[in-house]
């Protein structure tokens, strides 16, 4: 008995069934102690750093078109470097200003790839 091969849902359903089966297999291996060991849990400062950067990146994606590339990227880079532990304020501010300007010049001017103008539309 063959499945209806003209039905576009057939292969996705098959993949979903296989995926479910693989997940059950993995669960079974974990419960019976036959799985390979995992790395340790992300805790403390490492975890905070990763979550902080992920949150900053999410906010950046949301605001970049509204505020514009340079206006959004400067505070993003500032917050990013702070999250990584940078506390040399002059370098931090210079970096946060120079990189968006340089990137704008390379992409928008040299490569003719327009970046979001946002507030400067």
């Amino acid at each position, binding site marked *: 008995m063959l499945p209806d091969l003209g039905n*576009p849902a057939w292969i996705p359903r098959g993949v979903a069934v296989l995926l479910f089966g693989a997940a059950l297999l*993995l669960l079974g291996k974990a419960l019976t102690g036959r799985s*390979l060991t995992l790395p340790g849990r*992300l805790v403390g400062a490492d975890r905070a*750093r990763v979550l902080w950067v992920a949150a900053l990146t999410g906010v950046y994606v949301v605001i970049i078109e509204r505020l514009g590339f340079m206006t959004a990227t400067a505070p993003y880079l500032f917050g990013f470097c702070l999250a*990584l*532990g940078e506390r040399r304020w002059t370098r931090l501010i210079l970096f946060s200003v120079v990189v968006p300007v340089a990137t704008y010049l390379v992409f928008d001017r040299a*490569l003719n790839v327009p970046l979001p103008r946002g507030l400067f539309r």
Partner: protein
Amino acid sequence: MVDPSLLLHGFGTVLSGYNLVALVLGSFFGIIIGAIPGLTATMGIAILVPFTFGMTPITGIVMLLGIYTGAIYGGGIASILIKTPGTPAAAATVFDGYPMAQAGLAGKAIGIATISSGIGGTFTALGLAFFAPILANFALRFSAPEYFALAVFGLAVTITLSGRSPVKGVISGLLGLLLAMIGLDPMGGFQRFTFGFAELTGGLSFVPMLIGLFALSEGFRQVEIILTAPRVSATLKNILPTLKDLKECLPAYLRACPIGLIVGITPAIGADTAAFLSYAETKRASKKPESFGKGNPAGVAAAQCGENASTGGDVLPMITLGIPGDAATAVLMGALTIHNLQPGPMLFQAHPEVVHQIFAGMISANVVFVILGLIFARFFAQVINLDRKYLVPLIFITCMVGSYAINNVLYDLATCAIFGFLGYLMIRYDYPVAPMVLAQILGSMMESNYRRAVVMFHGDVTLFFTRPIALTILALAAFTTFVAVRRQRQALKQEAAQLAALEESSSQ
């Protein structure tokens, strides 16, 4: 066979004007990316693909080939200087490279590594030029059943040989297959998994997803380990090796070159396996095997030569059959497609001059990085000391701007960010990322060719077992899966034995 006149013309095109500048710039950035631990060749290509959009196809491709070969070579620099491979493929270079550096021979080690990489890469690029037309010609006999079988083989090998756990590789690959089905059904044009979003009608944006999974995910990983990156303090002297040094490494080259080429041709087995196998074989055949691991230049030569000798082999199935050899060639394939060049046997028919330009580009890239590596060795050594607190944010910005630059839509930027974080979680919890990406390419190929084959042969599914080429390829896929499951059982036993030994020694 390769056409000598087209190949000469290809060299003429690649080594002139903007193409030469692109090749040199690509090699330069590729070496930098490879030298910095944590940044991979795949990441480098993924980040720089958007920069090639404004270029002509061949200019963009030679730049990416320069990044690819340069990054594979560049990984050896960090292996030698700080005992940390710049790329996973350079792990074997540590065994003898770092002891040489500790003995004050860092310059010599880097010189030997540079020239060895160039020898291996050039050999395999010549191999690519020789074998690719033969394989492409053979592939012209393939029809839908054979392409379906090839896709299954590629998926089986990729899924089961990536990472430590075949089950996790299967899950990653199946997720990739599901993601490949977002958009329009290839035969009937129905919408699948779009959930009413117009942006998903054309499927997921492939290049932003690639950039996210391969580049941004590593960026998140670098955020996690930011405080632990080692620094270079060695000074480099006598970088250019003597003829006597190279003569001592000749046995290593004679083994590493063919090993690298053969390993590279096998899908999902990449430069790291080629490097280790080349090193092991050279050590085994040496008159002084006990000197390996203590600063034997032949050890550095074997590892670096084998590593770069796999690059041509990785490109071979991609360019002739449309099946990526590894993650880096998957990204290269994406770049070729963006430039309206569909890899496969028809590329050889429709654009033979482009194919020969690619061959010339691969050969030239290996010469260029040797010249750059020898001249700028001290600069590349210092690049390892770049402050990660600035480098990592720069990587993030380059990834996201690059993703946005493709179509100037926020959707691509969001795709890159989402898959970047997803890729990081996958890396963290030991789910290989490469199967997800390769499954997207191979999944579309598998589904459309399966359905086309069944329609062509009026619903008779036994055709996959009666056509000899298709049957052979499917049998290879089954054998590969069996080997992978067995390998995982051995890895589990080894890990259990190591844990038991650790517990015993800590209790004593």
